[in-house]
C-alpha cells in the first residue's frame, strides 16, 4: 500500500528532505531539482506530490494525499480538518506584526496587509483593535513603503527582508515550525503505514535535537 506525501515546494522542502533521509528514507537526490510534480519512490512505498505550501493542507484534507508537511502558519490560516501529528521542528520562524519605525497607526482607517488574512483578523480582534485587512499574495513588505497599509503581518525567519526594507518588528504573534499532518480517513484506513512513518520521523526529530544540542 503506497502512501502519498504532499510536500511544500520552496523553503521547507530542503529541510524536510534532510529530515526524511535522517529518518532512513532512501530518497533519490534529484527529487529536489526535479520539475515533476509527482514522483514515486517505489522501494519506500511512497509517492511525493509537490505543492504550494498553502495548498498542502488542502490536498491532505481532501485525502488525495494521505500525509503532508505543512507550516503551522498554514494550519492556523486554513483551519483544515487534518490530524496534526508531529512537530518536525524544522524551518523555525514566527509570525509578526511589522511596520516602518516611528509611524502611527492611521486614526481613521487603520490597515494591515498580509498573506494571512485569517490569522491577522483573529489576532487584531483579540486585541480589540478594528483594522481593515488587505490580502496580498507576496512581497508584503512593499505595503507600508508605498502607503497601502501602515502595518503588515508576515512570516519572519531571519528578519533580513524586514531590515533591508527599513521595517521593524512590532509584535510577535506565534512561533512557527513545520508539522507532519495526516488525513483523518488515511489515519484510520492506513494506520500501520502511517504509524510506521510517525515512528521513523519521531526518531529523526530526536536525533536532530541531540545533534543540535552538541
Amino acid at each position, binding site marked *: 500500500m503506497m502512501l502519498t506525501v504532499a510536500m511544500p515546494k520552496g523553503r521547507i522542502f530542503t529541510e524536510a528532505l534532510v529530515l526524511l533521509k535522517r529518518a532512513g528514507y532512501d530518497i533519490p537526490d534529484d527529487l529536489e531539482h526535479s520539475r515533476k510534480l509527482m514522483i514515486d519512490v517505489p522501494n519506500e512505498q511512497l509517492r511525493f506530490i509537490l505543492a504550494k505550501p498553502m495548498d498542502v493542507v488542502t490536498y491532505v484534507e481532501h485525502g488525495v494525499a494521505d500525509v503532508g508537511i505543512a507550516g503551522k502558519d498554514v494550519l492556523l490560516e486554513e483551519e483544515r480538518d487534518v490530524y496534526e501529528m508531529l512537530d518536525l521542528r524544522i524551518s523555525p520562524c514566527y509570525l509578526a506584526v511589522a511596520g516602518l519605525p516611528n509611524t502611527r497607526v492611521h486614526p481613521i482607517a487603520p490597515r494591515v496587509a498580509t498573506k494571512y488574512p485569517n490569522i491577522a483578523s483573529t489576532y487584531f480582534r483579540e486585541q480589540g483593535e478594528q483594522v481593515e485587512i488587505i490580502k496580498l499574495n507576496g512581497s508584503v513588505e512593499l505595503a507600508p513603503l508605498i502607503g497601502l497599509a501602515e502595518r503588515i503581518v508576515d512570516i519572519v525567519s531571519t528578519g533580513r527582508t524586514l531590515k533591508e526594507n527599513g521595517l521593524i518588528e512590532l509584535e510577535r504573534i506565534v512561533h512557527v515550525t513545520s508539522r507532519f499532518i495526516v488525513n*483523518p*480517513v488515511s489515519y484510520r484506513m492506513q494506520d500501520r503505514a502511517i504509524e510506521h512513518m510517525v515512528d521513523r520521523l519521531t526518531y529523526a526529530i530526536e536525533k536532530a535535537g541531540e545533534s543540535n544540542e552538541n
Partner: protein
Amino acid sequence: MRVFMFEKPLGMRDTLPDVYKTKRLLREAMMAEIETWGYSFIETPTLEYDETVGKASAILDQQLFKLLDREGHTLVLRPDMTAPIARLAASKLYEEGCPLRLAYAANVFRAQQREGGRPAEFEQVGVEYIGDGTMYADAEVISLMIFALKRAGLRDFTVTIGHIGYVDALFFDILRQEQRVETLRRFLYEKNYVGYREHVKSLPLSSIDRDRLLRLLTLRGGKEVVAEGKAYATTEAERRALDELEQLWTYVDQYGVTDMVKLDTSLVSHMSYYTGVLFEVYAKNVGFLLGNGGRYDELLAKFHRPSPATGFSVRLDRLMEAIGEQQRGEKTTCIIFSQERFTEAYAKAAEMRRKGENVVLQHIAGIQNMDQFTASFDDVVYVLGKRGKDEQ
C-alpha cells in the same frame, strides 16, 4: 451580488437521473437491512423551531439555516435527524413503551463556511435506539451500521470506537476543573496532537499523571487496548468505561464484525454531545468521514424526558462516492407511435408496464431530434403508419 440564471444557492445541488438511481439503490439496500432488524422508519418536518430542536442539535449554531415564520419565531432547517426524533420520542412515542427503535432516510441542512461547493443539503440514513442504556444497545447500533453498509455494497471500510466517559474520567481525575478539562478535550476534538502534547508538558503535573495523559494518544488498536488502559487506570470511572468497551467488543464479536472495528481512546467527535461510547466510520476512496454515531444520554432530557439513547447516521452522498455508480439490470423501452395506431401502442405499453418493465410512450410528432431522443433508450419500438407496416 448578481445571481446567474442557472445558479443555485450555495451548497445546493440537483440530482440527475443516473445519480438518483444510484442513490436510491444504496438507500433501499440500507433501509432493507435496517428494517430486518425491526426498526421503524419515520419522517419529521423539514422546519423546526430554533429554540427547541435548533438548540438541542449537535450541529454548531453557525452551521444552521435560520428563517422567521409569520409570527417572528426563528425556524431552522433541520441540521440533523437526531434532535427531531428526540423531540418526537419525548412527546409522543414514549408512551408506546421503550426501548424504541426508529430509523430515517432524510435530507439535512448545514451551511458551509469554506469552499461553497460542498453540499449544504445532503441525505443521511440512520437509526436512533432510545431507552436502552445497556452495552447491547451500543453493540446493536454499531453492528447494524456495519451490516447495512455491507448490504449497500461497501467493502473497504473501518469503524473506530472510543469512549468519552474514559477521556473525561482521566482528565477530571488529573485536572479537576471543567475548564481545564475542556481545553485539553478541545485539542483532541481539533485533532491537534502536537498542541495536546505541548499543553500536557506545560502543565504542572507529576510525571505519572503526565504519562497517563500522553499515553491516551497511543491507546489504539484491537481488544488489547482495554487491558493496556486498565493497567494504568487509577479511578473507578476509568475502569468502568474500559469495562464497557470490553463488553462492547465481546457483543460486537457475537455479530461477527470485529474485523471492521478498532478502538481508539482519544476519539472525541464532538465537544459536549456524546456521553459514552462513540464511533466514526471511514471508507476508502473518500477523504472525509462517511458516518458516525454514539451514545447521547442527555439529549432526551432537553425535551423533559430523560432517557438513554444511541444511534448512527451515514451520509448517502459520501457512500455513493465510496461505492461508485451502481447499475441496476433494468432497461427502458421507447414506443414511438403515430396517431392512427395510438390504441395499439398504448395496449402494448400497458402490457409491458404490467410486467414491470419501464416504457416510454411517445407520439412521433412530439420528437424534435429523432437520433438524439432514441439514443437514450435500450430498445425502441415503432408503431407507425397503417397497421402491419414498419413493425420494429
